[in-house]
């Protein structure tokens, strides 16, 4: 279905999957904190976008706006050609905290979104085997083959986060939103999971938005890095990442890579200082 949009020639080009236009979002009433202001961002289908910025710059607000968990006071958020007025069910989300339900096995945890999403929940019981097979395939993709019947508390932090990714992907979302998913992991596990995400993005027809503090992560994974200002957050710069895919971990040690990381670092330092 995703491909058909490329055939729409409204303005002579495909419309972006996510389009955030002049959005203001204020928490806690008219005198509350302005989390983002004048936010503009377009994300194309199939793109991998990383959002970086100083802490408290409204990155998580951006996530919630895009998924329809928050509705902006001014401006518009358009996802898949529709203005967002309620949660959009074409997204999968994963947070730093894996939030696996401890009373369900890993497999049951991964199947949870199917019990919710309208288009799957009525089919689930009758087509259980098909969905289980799909979940097991996903588990294999992230390197957790055979761990489906383990409980989450029997898995390590990195394994839980892998399972969390499977849960975010099981209902074949068009948009995957990741909020610092690797923040709590050790460096080696993190790099392993970068490769898992990289391969998922390459093999599945999915658009990914990754909110992160880790600039190397953003440059390694993304097609486009978006730099946000300090609160109230808005986009100060967008950089296309020039490195060719598929990218290998060796890229992390190349001068061009580090140069880009350094440039981003400088921009964020400026954004912090401006606050």
């Amino acid at each position, binding site marked *: 279905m995703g491909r058909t949009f490329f055939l729409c020639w409204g303005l002579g080009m495909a419309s972006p999957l996510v389009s955030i236009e002049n959005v203001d979002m204020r928490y806690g009433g008219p005198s509350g904190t302005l989390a983002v202001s004048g936010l503009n961002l377009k994300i194309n289908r199939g793109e991998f976008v990383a959002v970086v910025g100083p802490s408290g710059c409204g990155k998580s607000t951006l996530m*919630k706006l895009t998924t329809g968990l928050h509705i902006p006071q001014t401006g518009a958020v358009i996802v898949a050609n529709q203005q967002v007025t309620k949660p959009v069910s074409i997204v999968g989300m994963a*947070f730093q*905290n894996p939030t696996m*339900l401890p009373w369900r096995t890993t497999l049951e945890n991964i199947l949870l979104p199917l019990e*919710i999403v309208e288009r799957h929940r009525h089919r689930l019981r009758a087509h259980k085997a098909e969905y289980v097979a799909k979940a097991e395939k996903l588990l294999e993709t992230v390197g957790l083959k055979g761990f489906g019947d383990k409980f989450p*508390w*029997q898995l*390590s932090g990195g394994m839980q986060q892998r399972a969390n990714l499977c849960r975010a992907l099981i209902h074949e979302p068009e948009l995957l939103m990741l909020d610092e998913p690797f923040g709590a992991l050790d460096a080696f596990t993190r790099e392993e999971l970068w490769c898992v995400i990289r391969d998922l993005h390459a093999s599945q027809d999915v658009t990914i938005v990754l909110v992160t503090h880790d600039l190397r992560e953003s440059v390694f994974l993304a097609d486009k890095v978006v730099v946000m200002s300090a609160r109230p957050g808005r986009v100060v710069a967008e950089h296309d990442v020039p490195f060719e895919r598929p990218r290998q971990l060796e890229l992390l040690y190349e001068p061009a890579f580090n140069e880009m990381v350094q440039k981003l670092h400088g921009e964020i330092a400026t954004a912090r200082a401006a606050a």
Partner: protein
Amino acid sequence: MTTLDTSTPVAVPPKPAFTVNWVRLAPFLYTIGLFVIWEIGVRISGLPHTILPTPTRVFEAIIQYWSPIWKNSLQTLYTTVLGFLIAVVAGLGIGLFIGWSKTIYAGLYPIMVGFNAVPKVALVPILVIWFGIGTVPAVLTAFLISFFPIVVNVATGLATIEPETEDVLRALGAKKMDIMLKVGIPRSMPYFFGSLKVSITLAFVGSVVSETVASNSGLGNMMASAQSNFNVPLVFAGLLMLAFEGIVMYALMAWFEQRMTGWAHRSTMAN
């Protein structure tokens, strides 16, 4: 950090076959120890039976009055368990209702706290006016005193759902009902089963208070009449029976908790 084997996480060193498992035996040894100290203390100090009977005298009383003790113990167990069961149903229902929304929680919580602060013994006369003396006020007092911990625990379980979990599900289009069924209710179950241990103990307090004040049967009534006849060993026999019933019911609830929500214990252990 993580135990992949499901066997006991504590490394048990190999030990000779004849060692005594002191931890296993401790509850019994300590109880016997308590009775021995009690016996010796009373004998040395020469306190009369009418003040503090020795344990042997109390056990004698249990054998001597076995028929009334047995009958009244069953009556107390019956009122307690019945009141407790009503409390479980009502507490679960009210707890889920309160935990459903922040507004209901905010509105009902102070009322519940105020209600809980009222000593239940003060309600017994009202219950007697309404229902007369006997089984009904005892059951209701047991219910009234034991349902509050259940309500609070269930509501807490619902109120402490991680915001991330809620976000993940809401972004998928989950309704409030979905979140409750898939996350809220299973999540509050360890709290619920944990509260049963507290509740069953309180239920005994309620039924015995009511029986003491307004009943012709039950251990509370038996102890009250024994006391008025200066039959102090029988009063203590009643206390022992209550303690025994309390321990058995508590153990039953603890076992139930372990069976139903063992995952909660194991998952906190793994973290």
